[in-house]
């Protein structure tokens, strides 16, 4: 029977995450964007919430709680509502954990997962995007050619988060048959060349790098499963949830501003042009969330959900841009000033149409 509510456990997780986001993450968001650094203390506190360890079975050191994509979207949205860069940083271990849990064999799980169950935060990473204007998931330039009992990975990646400190990087490359495969690579593997830290329009708090794979050789055990596209769909669902979180942040902020600020003798929010704009923003955010939940729910039913995910991803990417842009408009001149976070959310929001494999549920 149709039921579009969170269950009690999910509700509990949402409350925890949003509380953490507003109390711990949001206050640090502006400075992280301006300075490009995220206080380690926040990442450590986030780690203590156990959001990563929860989904890892006990035999590998985790809490062995059920791993639901829907729950993953709730976590992603909640943290991203606080700040996108910090959310991506804090959830980066999932890039590895989720990949291994879904495609890894027993051996791979045993060897990799425990690294992400320790006392302290352990960064994970994924290398998906490539520096070309027409990047497309089904046309990766990076290749992984079979070489004896292993693979040789060659190609350039960009927007690789935390490449320097990551325990593992999941590298997406096209195999001998042109199938997109996922390969677990450690940053110190010979042939892995981590470039300068990137400068992007948004998510400035997050460390991302260009990474070159120069005939980087990995053994056969590095490959996770066969077709890695399901992982990229999970990433899109997580990113769409984060887009909803960013949009939600912009709505709430501009809503408060409009109720507080006066124009022509009344509150800005009492003007239909602004009030109806806020109404549309709220409606679109709710719609995006529901559409994305359905995509996530389909993944939890182990449906391939290619269609649902593509729709949710596209919808969320467009919506977060228009909502954050409207947020700036509601603030008028003040929306253009960095003292207010709305322009940052617009810069961050614009990224979702480009981001691939930056998070997972």
């Amino acid at each position: 029977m149709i039921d579009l509510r969170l269950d009690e456990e999910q509700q509990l997780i949402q409350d925890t995450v949003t509380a953490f986001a507003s109390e711990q993450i949001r206050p640090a968001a502006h400075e992280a964007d301006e300075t490009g650094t995220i206080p380690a203390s926040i990442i450590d506190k986030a780690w203590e919430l156990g959001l990563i360890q929860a989904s890892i079975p006990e035999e590998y050191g985790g809490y062995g709680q059920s791993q639901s994509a829907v729950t993953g979207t709730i976590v992603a949205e909640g943290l991203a509502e606080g700040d996108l860069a910090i959310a991506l940083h804090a959830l980066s271990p999932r890039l590895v954990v989720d990949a291994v849990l879904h495609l890894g064999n027993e051996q791979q799980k045993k060897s990799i997962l425990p690294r992400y169950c320790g006392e302290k935060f352990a960064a994970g990473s994924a290398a998906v995007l490539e520096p070309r204007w027409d990047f497309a998931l089904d046309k990766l330039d990076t290749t992984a050619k079979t070489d004896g009992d292993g693979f040789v990975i060659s190609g350039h990646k960009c927007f690789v988060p935390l490449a320097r400190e990551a325990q593992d990087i999941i590298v997406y490359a096209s195999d001998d048959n042109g199938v997109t495969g996922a390969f677990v690579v450690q940053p110190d593997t010979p042939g892995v060349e981590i470039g300068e830290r990137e400068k992007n329009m948004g998510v400035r708090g997050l460390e991302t790098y260009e990474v070159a794979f120069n005939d980087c050789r990995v053994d056969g055990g590095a490959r996770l499963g066969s077709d890695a596209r399901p992982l990229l769909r999970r990433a899109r669902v997580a990113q769409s949830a984060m887009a909803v979180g960013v949009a939600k942040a912009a709505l709430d902020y501009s809503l408060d501003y409009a109720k507080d600020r006066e124009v022509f003798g009344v509150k800005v929010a009492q003007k239909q042009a602004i009030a109806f704009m806020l109404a549309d923003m709220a409606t679109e955010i709710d719609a995006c969330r529901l559409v994305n939940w359905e995509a996530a729910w389909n993944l939890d039913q182990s449906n391939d959900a290619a269609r649902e995910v593509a729709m949710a991803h596209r919808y969320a990417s467009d919506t977060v841009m228009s909502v954050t842009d409207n947020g700036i408009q509601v603030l008028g001149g003040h929306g253009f000033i960095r003292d207010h976070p709305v322009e940052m959310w617009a810069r961050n929001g614009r990224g979702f149409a480009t981001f691939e494999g930056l998070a997972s549920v």
Partner: protein
Amino acid sequence: MNFNLSEAATKRKELMSYAAQELMRPISRQFDEEEHTEPWDFFNTMWEASKGSRESTSITGDNPTQEEKPKSAAKASEGTLIAAVQIEELAWGDAGLYLAIPNPGLGGAAVSAAGTAEQKKRFLGDFHEGKPRWGAMAITEPHFGSDSKQVATTARRDGDEWVLNGTKIFCTSGYRALELSEGFVIVWATLDKSRGRPAIKSFVVPAGTPGVTVSKLEDKMGIRASDTAQIVFEDARIPADNILGTEEIVEKGRAGFKGVMATFDATRPIVAASGIGVARAALDFVKDTLAENGIEIRYEASRNEMTVLESEVIDMETQLQAARLLTWRACNMMDRGERNSCEASMCKAKAGLVATKLTQKCVELLGPLGYSRKLLVEKWMRDAKIADIYEGTQQINQMIIARSILGYSSTELN
């Protein structure tokens, strides 16, 4: 969280889908072209089918408010949701014919929502006996549309009768309720114009009441199989106990005007569902056409490869599903007895807009065929637009959403 329909919902959906396919589609064009004629065979079939069957009344949206038993039912109710699912199917068949189905309609919804047990028994009890009958709701008047506190039709108490005077327009099924059958119309009238909203009450006016005349049937852009009546009341006398709710002028609470407005929380998701049904009809047709032509939609294709056609189909599917989920959420809440005014307006606003734009796009996508009356696509565009207008225009629903998220009263934001 669950995105699967229950068995019960699926059963009703299939049943209505059958009716849409077999009973409505075959006559859809005829009763669009032959406006103001009566599809009697269809009426009789639907009437027979509905006899004794309570759910069937839900296809008009009166059921949901009956279902509104906060927490009372141990097992979660899904009456409103099932109503929405059914109406999507029927509107997929033909939105005009769906509105024309003989049943208590919005009038019934009002009786269910605000009537006493005795009134429910009297007006709805044997409603499904005998020949087809219609119930209707008369709110709008020539001088106002959205601003329903402007009601100028008066109800004067005279002994044990109410005397109604005024003119109503845009009364769906008003003609069939009053002149084609032994039905009734719920009339919004004021006891005292100077007292504003609280003085507005609704009255049950049965067919055959002297002084009641259907003075005009509107020619419409779409949903032409549905009659839209203008009704004049000249010293129309009805029994004193035909008033719904108390006759004292209560300033606050659901007993008063708010109570009357609350029926919108039930009807808006229903209207949204009907818009979604029409839109889905158009989108299904386009997708079938593409399939027949061997064109498959590549959902994961990149922008450099995806054609405009594919992109537009994906957008339409996404928007349609967004509207549907917003609608189902509002139904969920109604079924749980939660206040859903904001969510009801959200789904109505979204569905109204999606139905309008999507059907316009489908006509465009089908070129000369889309524009021709040989196919039904152009009709769906004409039928869809009403979903963005009645039961509160796009703008009215934006206002209600805005008030809700801003915590504003109707004086703070209007």
